[in-house]
């Protein structure tokens, strides 16, 4: 894992001091709320319905146990004893006092953490594949590149007042586990025929009210030109992205309006200019960062295979573990989606426990996933049963990864001032329903995602089944979408038709799954069946 040197520490400390000063000036009345807002947002502080929310950055989703413990401590000390893991691999606290925020940031800085640029119209925390460094199918660990970009994008002097927020994700395998194509910039590290690594840049993806899948803008950026090329991408956006209408200000709209080819040509011209400016870090810096992500001391020569005679354990192994690149190891996902629970929430006690388990079972490392779960990336298979028992005792062994119970939901009307409808209680009902009727496991992979409004924080466009909360004559109403996906086969869901009330949408989802179960052919996932048979049979069942 990356470790700060004195420079990194100095920068974070400088930011804490700066923010403390800004809060002081705000409380003294020297800053208006309008002037203060972008400053607090750049430190992760949002004003919600009932209180301030603080979003803490987890760069590329990776944490050590000390950091995880700190997240638990903050939940206890400054919040109501829990935290909420988010779809961008961060954690949010929903009940924060403005006066406490500088102290929280100071505590975070003692474990090399911060809330820098987790919000605001700047380059946000950079996300990555949550199985980075562990997945059998990766060509490299994507995190060194994400870390290099973290440094480059932190306090960037030119790109701190962009037209709109800017999200970057980095992956290094064919399979996309980071919704890379739905980011403003998605970077895929890949290998050419000569065996060298390079970066493909996809630009202009995003969700929100106008969801778009990104365009491949350049297939091959040499690794020693990564920052220069990113800088060119951002400069063209900063200069030409729309600022007259915040709903049209994301880079996806710029690409949509001028065309991906024109954008690529402008970036290329800017890139040529910037090549002479010495903005690229020395290659030795990338190598320095890489050494932090070297393999942990894996035990060599272990064999694969787990005794699955305990059926509950077997179900969890089949559902919640992922193929590791080293024999005898596996990546285990801790589902934060217990039946009827709040997706992504964890209590302080659970956070502390997960920190302990990361230390005992996974070389002191854990990850936050964009599906709001926690991964222990490097677990010895022969110790998996022991791990599972510890999780099971704490209510953290739900075996529902990627199933209908593994719901992504935004905070919705319970917290968010922009919401049209509640998302959390709906998620709880759905999860309860499909547990009670025993269909969760029968249905298999089905990614269900709920947003409380058109801003799409809950990724509803990318759900195999998506649910969008809308306001219908002053009442909460839910539209259903089918066929979205955020994987390698990224697609956007389509609306089925008129919306439903809260109970109605739970029934509608059940009907949708019945159509699937009746129609599925061998091995088909819900998404495959939908793609084969199309929307009609589902419409028929829902409205016919």
């Amino acid at each position, binding site marked *: 894992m990356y470790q700060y040197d004195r*420079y990194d520490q100095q*920068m974070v400390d400088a930011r804490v001091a700066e923010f403390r000063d800004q809060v002081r000036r705000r409380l003294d009345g*020297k800053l208006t709320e309008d002037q203060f807002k972008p400053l607090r947002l750049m430190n992760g502080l949002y004003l919600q319905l009932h209180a301030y929310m603080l979003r803490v950055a987890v760069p590329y989703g990776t944490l050590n146990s000390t950091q995880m413990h700190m997240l638990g401590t903050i939940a206890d000390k400054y919040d109501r004893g829990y935290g909420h893991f988010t779809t961008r691999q961060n954690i949010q606290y929903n009940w924060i006092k403005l006066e406490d925020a500088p102290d929280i940031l100071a505590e975070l800085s003692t474990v090399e953490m911060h809330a820098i640029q987790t919000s605001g119209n700047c380059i946000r925390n950079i996300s990555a594949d949550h199985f980075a460094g562990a997945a059998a199918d990766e060509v490299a660990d994507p995190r060194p590149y994400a870390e290099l970009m973290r440094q480059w994008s932190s306090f960037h*002097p*030119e790109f701190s007042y962009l037209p709109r927020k800017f999200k970057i994700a980095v992956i290094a395998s064919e399979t996309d586990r980071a919704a890379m194509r739905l980011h403003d910039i998605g970077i895929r590290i890949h290998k050419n025929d000569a065996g060298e690594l390079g970066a493909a840049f996809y630009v202009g993806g995003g969700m929100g009210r106008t969801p778009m899948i990104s365009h491949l803008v350049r297939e091959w950026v040499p690794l020693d030109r990564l920052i220069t090329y990113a800088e060119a991408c951002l400069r063209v956006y900063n*200069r030409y992205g729309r600022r007259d209408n915040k709903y049209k200000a994301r880079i996806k709209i710029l690409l949509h309006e001028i065309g991906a080819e024109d954008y690529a040509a402008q970036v290329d011209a800017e890139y040529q200019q*910037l090549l002479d400016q*010495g903005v690229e870090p020395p290659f030795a*810096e990338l190598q320095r960062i890489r050494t932090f992500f070297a393999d942990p001391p894996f035990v060599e020569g272990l064999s694969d295979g787990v005794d699955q005679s305990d059926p509950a354990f077997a179900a969890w192994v089949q559902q919640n573990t992922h193929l590791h690149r080293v024999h005898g190891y596996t990546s285990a996902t801790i589902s934060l989606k217990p039946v009827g629970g709040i997706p992504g929430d964890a209590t302080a006690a659970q956070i502390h426990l997960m920190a302990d388990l990361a230390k005992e079972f996974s070389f002191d490392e854990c990850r936050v996933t964009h599906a709001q779960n926690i991964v222990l990336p490097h677990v010895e298979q022969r110790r998996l049963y022991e791990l599972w028992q510890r999780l099971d005792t704490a209510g953290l062994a739900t075996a529902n990864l990627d199933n209908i119970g593994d719901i992504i939901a935004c905070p919705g009307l319970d917290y968010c001032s922009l919401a049209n409808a509640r998302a959390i209680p709906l998620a709880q009902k759905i999860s309860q329903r499909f547990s009670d009727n025993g269909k969760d496991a029968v249905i298999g992979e089905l990614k269900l995602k709920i947003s409380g409004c058109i801003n799409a924080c809950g990724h509803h466009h990318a759900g195999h089944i998506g649910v969008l909360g809308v306001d219908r004559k002053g009442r909460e109403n839910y539209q259903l979408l089918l066929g979205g996906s955020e994987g390698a086969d990224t697609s956007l869901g389509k609306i089925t038709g008129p919306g439903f009330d809260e109970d109605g949408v739970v029934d509608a989802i059940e009907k949708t799954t019945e159509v699937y179960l009746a129609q599925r052919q061998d091995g088909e996932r819900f998404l495959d069946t939908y793609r084969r048979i199309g929307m009609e049979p589902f419409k028929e069942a829902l409205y016919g």
Partner: protein
Amino acid sequence: MAEPISGTDSEARELDDVQFRFREDEMVDHPAVTVDAFVGQTNASAVRIEPGDDARDLLPHLGRIALVEVNFPSFGDGRGYSAARILREAGYQGELRAVGDVLIDQLSHMRRCGFDSFAPGVRLDEEDAARAFATWPEVYQAAVDGRAPIWTLRHGERNGDTNG
């Protein structure tokens, strides 16, 4: 971080409400003209860029410019940062002045993008501003202020000329 040369110099302020200036040469004593007007005439040496202007239109004329004002009608519109850097990257040595909605918390970034004078629409608290100019002990990126980024310091070499 160097002290501004004209920090509290009240005489200088009267010229153009410049509150902070990090240069020693004489200030231009005539008003800046728009980019369109500038490109069309030959005698002006001061020009004012609005957010929608293309700073590159000025590149053929850099030799005869002594002052570029970059206007920030609203602090949240960050186009002026790119305009400033583009001019400096192209070798512009004259005065680069941020005018308009220029606030305490943007000063350090503006300085890094090559601004060397500041004429805020509303006068800023001197102490707060001094702290703001000194916010960053080191910097992560190469920009146009000549500061060596952290990654250069780490490896004890300069990676190209950061000052274009």
